[in-house]
């Protein structure tokens, strides 16, 4: 089990852009955390600190109390799997199976255990029939699911997903939700960046909003999307999901999801 702690983390890109400005967060093992915030607010930069692709300019990132400054990216790959926003920056093998195999093989899996992990990850994203296909013969949305399967197969205690539902149709979004549910069901931590507020409200226990490299909201979907938070959300160019707006309009309190709103409506009449 891995607890993640960001302790006053700041990061300035070599170009001078200050992407993170004193972020402190504790994420407990098994939590489902959504990172939201306007374009350029620091979400992806934060995600890349979790697996050591970026190192803080100041502050510390701790995994189970261990400062990641002392660990290599290869060592951190055992702890944190990161699926990129753009799958084409991740995919490099000639077949779908080869792509999914790469990560767990590097972690030492061989033989039957490797095959089982790969088969399960492919089945989970609906790509079991495409094992021999070249990834670039898949459409963009299935390449994104392939990238998701590749990090899922590594079984790392922490899974970081950068905009997993982008470009996914209805079925694809359901697959992403299922992958997240299975991962947290197995005790893994899932941290996802998303601009899709319905998906965030329906899928995560905790919502962290960033603005200009700072945390401005941190709470359950009910509190992060409650009317008191709307000014903060709008200050980072976000809007609450529709059921939250309607629940507030009807005086039903915090109703971040369709289910919560309809239950409140049913109870109130």
């Amino acid at each position, binding site marked *: 089990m891995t607890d993640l702690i960001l302790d006053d983390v700041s990061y300035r*890109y070599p*170009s001078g*852009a200050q992407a993170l400005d004193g972020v402190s967060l504790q994420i407990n093992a098994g939590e489902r955390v959504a990172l939201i*915030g*306007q*374009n*350029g607010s620091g979400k*992806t930069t934060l995600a890349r600190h979790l697996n050591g692709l970026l190192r803080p300019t100041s502050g510390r990132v701790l995994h189970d109390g261990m400062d990641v400054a002392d660990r290599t990216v290869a060592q951190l790959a055992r702890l944190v799997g990161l699926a990129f*926003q*753009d799958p*084409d920056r991740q995919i490099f093998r000639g077949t779908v199976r080869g792509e999914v195999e790469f990560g767990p093989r590097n972690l030492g899996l061989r033989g039957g255990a490797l095959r089982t992990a790969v088969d399960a990850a492919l089945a989970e994203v609906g790509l079991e029939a495409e094992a021999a296909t070249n990834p670039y013969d898949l*459409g*963009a*949305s*299935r390449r994104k699911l392939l990238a998701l399967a590749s990090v899922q197969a590594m079984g790392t205690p922490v899974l970081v997903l950068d*905009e997993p539902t*982008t*470009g*996914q*149709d*209805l*079925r*694809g*979004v359901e697959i992403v939700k299922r992958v997240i549910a299975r991962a947290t069901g197995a005790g893994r931590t899932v941290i996802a960046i998303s*601009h899709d*507020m*319905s998906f965030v409200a329906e899928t995560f226990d905790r919502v962290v909003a960033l603005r200009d490299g700072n945390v401005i909201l941190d709470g359950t979907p009910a509190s992060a999307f409650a009317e008191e938070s709307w000014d903060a959300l709008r200050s*980072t*160019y*976000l*809007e609450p*999901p*529709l*059921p939250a707006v*309607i629940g507030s*309009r*009807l005086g039903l309190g915090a109703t971040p999801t*369709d*289910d919560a*709103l*309809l239950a409140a*409506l*049913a109870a*109130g*009449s």
Partner: protein
Amino acid sequence: MLTLESFTYRYAGARRPSLQEVSLELRDGEVLGLAGASEAGKTTLCLVASGLAPRTVGGSLAGRVLLDGEDTTPLAMHELAGRVGIAFASPATQLSGVAATVYEEVAFGAMNLGVPRDEVIARTEEALTALRIESLAERDPAQLSGGQQQLVAIAGLLALRPAHVVLDEPTAQLDPAGTAMVAAALAGLAATGASILVAEQKTDLLAAICGRVVVLDAGRVVLDGLAPDVLANPRLADLGVAPPAAVRLRRAADGMGLSATALARLDGSLAP
């Protein structure tokens, strides 16, 4: 006006055509939405409508694409570039990679078309303002976030002022405010008479800016009509398209057997 006349398109080496017997007419000033499950043919349709397929992409096309009634078959890509603008879902595909600043990147397309310098400056500044990215003007495009790059790519398209615009998931990486800005910019462009084709998974965006919506399934047009009708069509979910939030909520309410009073309260709050 952009007309696709009963066309069938097959990628080189593909067993089946990706699009079959598709006919569409896009009038001046119209924003036409294109929806459909992944791999239903939306991106391919964007490539054909913009002329990139088969010219650059290869493959074989039967049927014709007409611009204002003129058959585009004999036209080369550079002749089409000034008349049809395209924006891709991934800004990495779109950005020139040679501009050192966002300002130069946005001006790049218009400069290449030989637009006079003063005019390029005016258009560039207008496009940056429309998408609220003036503050990024001096930044290196390669150093921006994915969403910021997407806004830069769309600003470059706006600066071209094309009469016909094709956009493939232009807001895929944008925050809700960025999505709203792109929607407003597209509506503004349509108001100047441009015809706009926009493929999107975000049906809330289509509901906001499109008069008409077409849904593709396995390379064929299966729904085509007024946006409110198509987006409320019960078949939408079966076709792999997530309905707009309000439609989804109303349908869930129906499925729950809420009392008439509760439904009336919900309907009252959903009314625009």
